[in-house]
């Protein structure tokens, strides 16, 4: 990591880390009477720890200039490991909160073990920790391969990866302490949000700078998606988190929005977080790793285009379907529903494009669990997007809203689509990234596949059942016109499904642990004697003539 930096770059890194440490110190002092102070100490420790680490390597020999002729994969390697660590944390806490719903006494009267504090640790842990690290790690890999250019500099990829993980740690530790601005998937407070903006701008700059230096005439579709992901998430994050802190020494802030405007802004953000974080980014992943693994050309370039622009344009309007039958004006709900219905077309076009790409390679899907992960992801993507458009229809939503059906839908997407495409992509690059001939155990990949699939199916079926039962129980009237069931009756009816859900989640978690073990063992395998990775290098300047 540090050995790859020149002395001048090491000094720059020390400057950045020192500044971070000073910001942490300022937070610790300014927020000494507030929970902000604890976060100050964490930031200070991160800055100081990094500063010392770089300082110790300051006088190490200069790296060879040769390295600039290769792709810069060290950040991807670290990112892949962080992805798996966050997977275990996020899914572990997910299993815990699922168990809490079935056995609510398991909080043991400890505030930070309560459902309300643990639940965002799960959601942020899997979305931002697991998903975000996977996106950053794979985007650096895909970006370099599809542009045949090395990342633009040596420090900024580390700044993005490590800075992003600092954000995740601040977020998760804040939830446990009770710090939240109570916006779903946007819980972190103002200072964490500002930090993420800084990290994100650098991330976008890396993308633009690398693309500007590309040696390929065209920009591959995976990069359109990764760029849409980075750009739109920046817009969403900034707008939804506009808030005024009560003082610079306090973690608490107040949102700029209130009432129904706040709800609309939040769900414009929330739905597009699903669209551009959990969909666009992972479509980028799919468009590179699936055809690569299958050894097949993309089925249709034209379908790629219409689905990209369809998804990008249509999703922006769909957020209001989260607020059907609320104080939100009816006309906004109608538009949300109308766009959500049309959205199914580009979504299915993407899923179809992926599955049709596998034509001619289905025998590989049968034999190779890695490719099967990705094929299954495309199937779940198709199922989930159909379900999403269906649930966005107002009449359907009147049954599904506020029920576990929503949770089932989210997890069909999160487990079936996002996690499966991530694990597939991860397995397909881990050997080459760590310069190993193969993954440690193909059998364990197979085990992981079946754990993941059965976990997802159990989870989703449990939540479908429980959601529909819940929805029906809430709207069943007696002959005399009163409600047949009390809310607590519906909770009692949910109990067996909550146990099933926790079990499904446990299987999925075991799968993630299997992956972590398999990857660690792969890294510990001896390196092959002949390094054939030499073929995997960026275009030399000499090859540029005639472009």
């Amino acid at each position: 990591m540090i050995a790859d930096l020149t002395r001048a770059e090491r000094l720059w890194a020390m400057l950045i880390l020192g500044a971070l440490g000073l910001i942490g110190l300022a937070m610790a002092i300014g927020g000494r009477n507030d929970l902000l102070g604890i976060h100050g100490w964490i930031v200070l420790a991160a800055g100081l720890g990094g500063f010392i680490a770089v300082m110790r390597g300051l006088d190490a020999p200069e790296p060879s200039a040769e390295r600039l002729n290769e792709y810069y994969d060290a950040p991807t390697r670290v990112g892949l490991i962080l992805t798996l660590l966050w997977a275990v944390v996020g899914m572990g806490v997910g299993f815990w909160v699922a168990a809490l719903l079935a056995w609510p006494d398991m909080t043991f009267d400890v505030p930070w073990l309560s459902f309300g504090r643990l639940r965002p640790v799960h959601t942020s842990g899997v979305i931002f920790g697991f998903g975000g690290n996977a996106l950053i790690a794979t985007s650096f890999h895909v970006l370099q391969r599809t542009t045949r250019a090395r990342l633009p500099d040596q420090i900024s990829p580390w700044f993005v990866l490590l800075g992003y993980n600092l954000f995740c740690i601040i977020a998760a530790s804040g939830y446990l302490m009770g710090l939240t601005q109570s916006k779903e998937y946007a819980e972190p407070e103002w200072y964490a949000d500002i930090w993420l903006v800084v990290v994100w701008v650098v991330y976008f700059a890396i993308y633009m700078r690398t693309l500007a230096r590309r040696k390929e005439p065209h920009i591959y579709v995976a990069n359109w998606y990764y760029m849409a992901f980075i750009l739109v998430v920046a817009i969403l994050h900034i707008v939804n988190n506009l808030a005024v802190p009560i003082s610079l020494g306090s973690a608490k802030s107040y949102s700029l929005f209130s009432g129904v405007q706040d709800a609309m802004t939040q769900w414009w953000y929330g739905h597009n977080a699903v669209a551009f974080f959990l969909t666009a980014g992972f479509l980028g992943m799919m468009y590179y790793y699936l055809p690569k693994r299958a050894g097949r050309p993309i089925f249709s370039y034209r379908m790629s285009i219409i689905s990209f622009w369809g998804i990008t344009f249509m999703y922006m309007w769909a957020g209001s379907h989260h607020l059907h039958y609320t104080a939100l004006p009816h006309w906004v709900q109608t538009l949300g529903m109308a766009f959500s219905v049309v959205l199914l077309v580009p979504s299915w076009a993407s899923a179809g494009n992926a599955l049709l790409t596998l034509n001619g390679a289905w025998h590989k899907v049968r034999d190779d669990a890695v490719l099967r992960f990705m094929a299954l992801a495309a199937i779940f993507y198709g199922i989930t997007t159909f379900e999403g458009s269906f649930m966005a229809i107002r009449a359907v939503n009147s049954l599904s809203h506020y029920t576990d059906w929503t949770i089932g839908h989210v997890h069909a997407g999160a487990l079936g689509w996002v996690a499966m495409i991530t694990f597939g992509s991860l397995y397909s690059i881990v050997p080459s990234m760590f310069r190993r001939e193969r993954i440690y155990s193909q059998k364990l990949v197979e085990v992981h596949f079946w754990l993941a699939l059965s976990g997802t199916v159990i989870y989703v079926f449990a939540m479908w059942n429980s959601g529909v039962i819940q929805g029906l129980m809430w709207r069943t009237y007696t002959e005399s016109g009163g409600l047949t069931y009390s809310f607590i009756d519906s909770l009692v009816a949910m109990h067996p499904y909550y146990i099933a859900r926790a079990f499904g989640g446990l299987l999925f978690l075991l799968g993630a642990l299997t992956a972590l073990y398999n990857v660690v063992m792969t890294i510990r395998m001896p390196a092959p004697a002949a390094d054939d990775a030499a073929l995997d290098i960026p275009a030399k300047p000499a090859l540029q003539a005639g472009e």
Partner: protein
Amino acid sequence: MAGLIERDKVSGQTTTGHEWNGIKELNTPVPRLLWAFLITATIFSVTWTVLMPSWPGINGYFRGLLGVDQRVAVTQSVTEAAVERESWTSRIDSEDFAAIQADDALMAIVRETGAALFGDNCAACHGTNARGTPGFPNLVTAPTMWGDDPETVAETIRVGINGTSPETRYAQMLAFGRDHMLERADIDAVVSYVETLSQPELAAGMDADTLAYGGEVFAANCAGCHGEDARGMTDTGTPNLTDQYWTYGGDRASIRHSVYHGRAGTMPSWEGRLSPTHIKLLTLYVLDLRANEQ
């Protein structure tokens, strides 16, 4: 790089000539099915926006050809439901408790509607079976603390106990230990005495002098509210200490905790949240549970 356009053997399509690290793309036309799907979905959605309130303008929005509005719709369906229920709610409102209790058909509705009403409003404290949870009294088999005639029960629900209504019922057991009203020895003695009220068999294992002293402490400090015979008083909402029903537990440690720290449980004042009809319905429901038990 000027790409080489090839023909793919599997699909028969040609590539676009682009290549990224070995990934190529076919120039397959967008399938007709997809166009048909896109056109159908678009027609549906556009039609929907024409029928429903949809496109915004500067000072308002297009109201849709069907003239549907969710606020109107919800107001209307709430009104309709109320009208539908009026056949029996009007009788609940107007008739007295005895008349309603005598009418089997009406009581069937009370049982049906009351169960959901109780589950949503009362079960969280009193339990789904209304038999109490630690700190909250059993409503089915235990004697009531404020009286069990229908008017009194309805009043208890309306104003609550130690609630927010200005007319709320007020009851507090003093913290005899914490507030230094009784010495430790006095507390131990009175706790022993109270234990024997509901469990006379315990007296055999206790010191007779202590029990006698406990009785004196009780007479001087407790009888004012709980009564000379410790059977409680409904006009002060004090519980009977001689029976087997304990809101806060009848074991020695619980009784001692009650005497030392006092008790002042809360029941919300429901008048702001439940309509008079609902309060009357819940009263009938709870009394019916009691009647079936006795």
